[in-house]
């Protein structure tokens, strides 16, 4: 087994566990979203695809075109999710997370 395969397997398993936990905790909310489960699975596919391309060093900016439909689905799902959940702490936490992401991105450029 190559190093790339190790990374891909480990990170994919961790991510699947994370998505499973997220599903268990938020089962009620996901069921209220139209096609919630399908949208959620498409998000998992997006994450696994990104992990695969990063692990095998085949990621590039052009791959954004291929995953753009999944990104739009992901945005729609998340928007519905947070709208239905309507939790102040989740909004706060999401805000901090996105702020951190922007800090990382700003540091890179």
């Amino acid at each position: 087994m190559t190093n790339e395969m190790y990374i891909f397997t480990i990170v994919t398993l961790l991510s699947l566990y994370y998505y499973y936990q997220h599903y268990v905790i938020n089962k009620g909310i996901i069921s209220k979203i139209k096609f919630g489960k399908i949208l959620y699975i498409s998000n998992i596919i997006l994450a696994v695809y990104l992990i695969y391309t990063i692990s095998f060093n085949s990621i590039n900016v052009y791959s954004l075109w291929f995953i753009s439909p999944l990104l739009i689905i992901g945005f729609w799902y998340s928007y519905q999710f947070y709208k239905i959940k309507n939790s102040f702490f989740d909004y706060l936490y999401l805000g901090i997370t996105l702020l951190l992401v922007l800090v990382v991105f700003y540091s890179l450029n």
Partner: protein
Amino acid sequence: MNILKSFRQPYLSIFLSSIILLVSCSSDDNHLKNVMTPEQLLIHLKNDNDFNLLVSKNTAFSNLLFNTLKTSQLKLDNDSNREVDLNNLMIELDILGDYIAYSMEINVHLQNIKSKYPNLAILTEDNILNVYNNLSTQDPNSRLPQRLLVDCDAQFQSDMQVIHDQYDTAVSICTIATLLTLALASPCFIAAVGNATFQTAVAIDRHTLCTRNQNNN
């Protein structure tokens, strides 16, 4: 309880890891900008603009090169393209800022030059590297990269450069995906961090092995 439940999710550790690796990678990369590996130099010399030899207009370097070529007919003072008489052979020179490029034409006539002037020293790739290294030490104001890396160090530097570039690309795309999916695609950051760490470890191993082999030889 809501706060505790939120913090059970692994976002924070992922992003803190990303930031730590990002800072560790980006804080000390200035030295990389001034470095060119021999391979990069040769690729530059061979392929860029179809020129096979690039020399500085700087007098010391020109003298150094033309002494190596055993010619003394060139006096360079204008920033323009010109033809010069190099031992009765007209060779076109392009003057690019502080540098002069011999056109590939010289390769066509290389055999003629060798037969006509058997004592003429022809610059081989090794000679070019030696001249380049001499220039780098003699002329600190040169706009050439400050030093050439060789062997294991060069390999390690280029490995790290590749890892760094891949990490930057991965984090950029993860950032876009995470922002668009409102943090749902964030696990890809783990892959970016994990992959960079793994590759760095492999590069260090390769460098250690290379140094050991070099010392044994």
